[in-house]
């Protein structure tokens, strides 16, 4: 049967969310002839719709449904109702992402073994490794057209990169380049080359950056096997007496509660919404939440160690001209405990426009110390710091029954405390970032605190032993055989790298597994 599918069609795979995980999974399944209904909470926006204006775009794309926060992280103070800066739209955060596409380093799949015991951290090895992931990474890089992989060229360096590169080389850093980016340096896969326009975070108006919104989603739909229902907010996953999921209840675009039957359900709503949905699906059989007999749903929330360093110079940089994330230093990504912490971090250029710089450079600050920095905006360069943070059981997403969303459903509370390892790594990264710019003659540097999280990981983590996590090596929940998790919430540990490439690789691999198991009659 071809799309659109009937609500009572119980042969379909229901995918919840259409971002890097759900969007890719939906297309990959559709390409294999599997019938898929993808339920997306947001609307559909394409390159013509994107707006090169930071706040207007935020209003168009960002997920701003209510959430609450707690813990000692500064985001809980500066942006208490906005713990994450992610997207509510077809394609999810692949619309907003900067495009950095890095593989995990081999040792990062085995963080517990490599790092040894870290007090207060719930480190665990992934049940999969670099060798197993290698072919899936290659497929993901081909899909995304990642530069500096598969014989593809790198992007040219913009002003912000040229400052960064010069400082990096002055310090003796070796692994410095314009990144492995899912942004075309040349025409690739029916998408044009980067025009150095900036505004990568606001959706690429040229389509030069890969996004599921205008690649995987329409291609899946073109097969006739994928139906995407927009503005469909899933409220609950249903199951039968045998403990198998049978369908999902969702609020449609008109606010009416609908029920879509399903053969398999795949949850890919990001690391806040995915555990929230499982917890909101509690039943008499699963009183602590669906697939939560381990008690691990919502736990081990990771957001990467992040921070930024901006610097001003005595002459113009004009960092906003060109690719938002335009280059990388990878020398600090190694695991080297002599630096005073385990794991490593990447340094990646970043630029913000004046409106966001005012909001994020030093949230809450005022007076001349702050405004004189903005006065030097034209002479400013910037980088983002992103490294592995420690999973902690108490960093978790729970239901806040005191606050309800527009559907009357309890919202996610996001609790996060920095681990001492995160703090030590951030301080090291601030020092090195500052040194990079001082080597080029910076007149002032600004160690900028973390923004609302864009890398939201863990909360349904993958584990060999069902006691330690929520899903197995395929993203299949330990408790419910026809329920999968398909987004970054399945990450066992976060590694130092931007997560999208790994989410995409896992989704391609999961689609392959699900299709084979369906053919074999096991699902």
């Amino acid at each position, binding site marked *: 049967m071809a799309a659109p599918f009937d609500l009572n069609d119980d042969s379909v795979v229901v995918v919840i969310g259409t971002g890097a995980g759900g969007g890719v999974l939906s297309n990959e399944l559709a390409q294999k002839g599997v019938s898929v209904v993808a339920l997306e909470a947001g609307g559909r926006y394409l390159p013509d719709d994107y707006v*090169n*204006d*930071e*706040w207007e775009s935020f209003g168009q794309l960002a997920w701003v449904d209510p959430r609450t926060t707690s813990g000692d992280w500064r985001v809980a103070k500066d942006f208490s109702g906005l713990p994450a800066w992610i997207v509510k739209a077809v394609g999810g955060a692949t619309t907003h992402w900067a495009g950095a596409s890095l593989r995990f380093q081999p040792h990062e799949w085995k963080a517990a073994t490599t790092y040894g015991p870290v007090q207060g951290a719930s480190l665990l090895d992934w049940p999969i490794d670099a060798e197993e992931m290698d072919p899936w990474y290659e497929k993901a890089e081909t899909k995304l057209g990642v530069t500096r992989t598969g014989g593809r060229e790198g992007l*040219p*360096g*913009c*002003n912000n990169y*040229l*400052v960064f590169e*010069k400082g990096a080389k002055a310090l003796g850093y070796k692994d410095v380049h314009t990144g492995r980016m899912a942004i075309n340096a040349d025409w690739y896969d029916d998408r044009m080359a*980067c*025009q*150095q*326009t*900036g*505004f990568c975070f606001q959706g690429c*108006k*040229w389509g030069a950056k890969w996004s599921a919104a205008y690649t995987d989603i329409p291609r899946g739909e073109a097969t006739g096997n994928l139906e995407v229902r927009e503005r469909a907010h899933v409220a609950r996953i249903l199951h039968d007496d045998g403990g198998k999921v049978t369908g999902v209840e969702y609020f449609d675009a008109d606010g009416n509660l609908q029920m879509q039957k399903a053969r398999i359900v795949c949850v890919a709503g990001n690391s806040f919404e995915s555990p929230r949905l499982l917890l909101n699906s509690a039943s008499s059989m699963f009183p602590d939440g669906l697939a939560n007999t381990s008690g691990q749903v919502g736990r081990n929330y990771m957001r990467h160690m992040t921070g930024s360093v901006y610097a001003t110079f005595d*002459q*113009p*940089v*004009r960092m*906003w*001209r*060109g690719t938002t994330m335009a280059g990388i230093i990878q020398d600090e990504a190694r695991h080297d405990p002599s630096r005073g912490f385990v794991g490593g971090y990447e340094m990646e250029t970043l630029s913000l*426009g*004046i*409106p966001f*710089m*005012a*909001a994020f450079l030093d949230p*809450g600050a*005022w*007076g*001349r110390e*702050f*405004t004189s920095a*903005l*006065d030097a*905006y*034209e002479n400013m360069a910037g980088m983002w710091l992103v490294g592995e943070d420690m999973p902690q059981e108490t960093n978790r997403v729970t239901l806040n029954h005191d606050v309800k969303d527009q559907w009357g459903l309890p919202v996610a509370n996001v609790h996060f405390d920095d681990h001492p390892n995160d703090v030590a790594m951030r301080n090291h990264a601030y020092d090195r970032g500052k040194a990079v710019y001082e080597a*080029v003659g910076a007149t002032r540097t600004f160690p900028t605190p973390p923004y609302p999280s864009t890398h939201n990981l863990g909360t349904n983590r993958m584990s060999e032993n069902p006691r330690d996590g929520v899903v197995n090596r395929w993203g299949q929940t330990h408790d419910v055989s026809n329920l999968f998790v398909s987004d970054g919430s399945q990450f066992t540990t976060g590694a130092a790298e931007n997560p999208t490439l790994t989410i995409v690789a896992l989704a391609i691999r999961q689609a392959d597994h699900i299709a084979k198991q369906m053919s074999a009659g096991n699902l």
Partner: protein
Amino acid sequence: MTDTLSRRTLTRRDLLARSAALGATFVVGAGFVGAHNAAWATEVKHLKPATMATLIQMARDIYPHDRIGDEFYAIAVKGYDAEEAAPAVEAGVAALDAAAQGKGHASYLAVGWERDRVDILRSMEDSAFFQQIRGGLVTGLYNQKAVWPIFGYEGASYEQGGYIDRGFNDINWL
């Protein structure tokens, strides 16, 4: 000067006299606040003109940019001149004036040096009023497209084809 001054001139003299008492930063008249040189003016409907003038000074003292004119600060705080917002803002500005008076000044606007006004603001920076004004300015001031060129920021470039041929890598001092 003669006794046959036009009504317009009289009004101006009258306003200048009033603004002098307020610290001489603004021309404050019945129902409006403006610049001495009449480069800009904003009407007030629900706030007292002196309250709006104080808000504009407070906005500049929170986010001082010497190359940004008062009109942009006025636009940033104009939204408080609304029926619902006015009572809380009048109370907030009254508290600000009271704090200034506690330090021996006639009013907040009468404080001559920025550092002295900033001291007063620091003493009340945890108040809901201060945080409301500061928080509102983050978008109210910096999201005005007209101020972006003052910072050198060029905004959207898609319409011009991006910077691929317009200086994305034109840095020449490295």
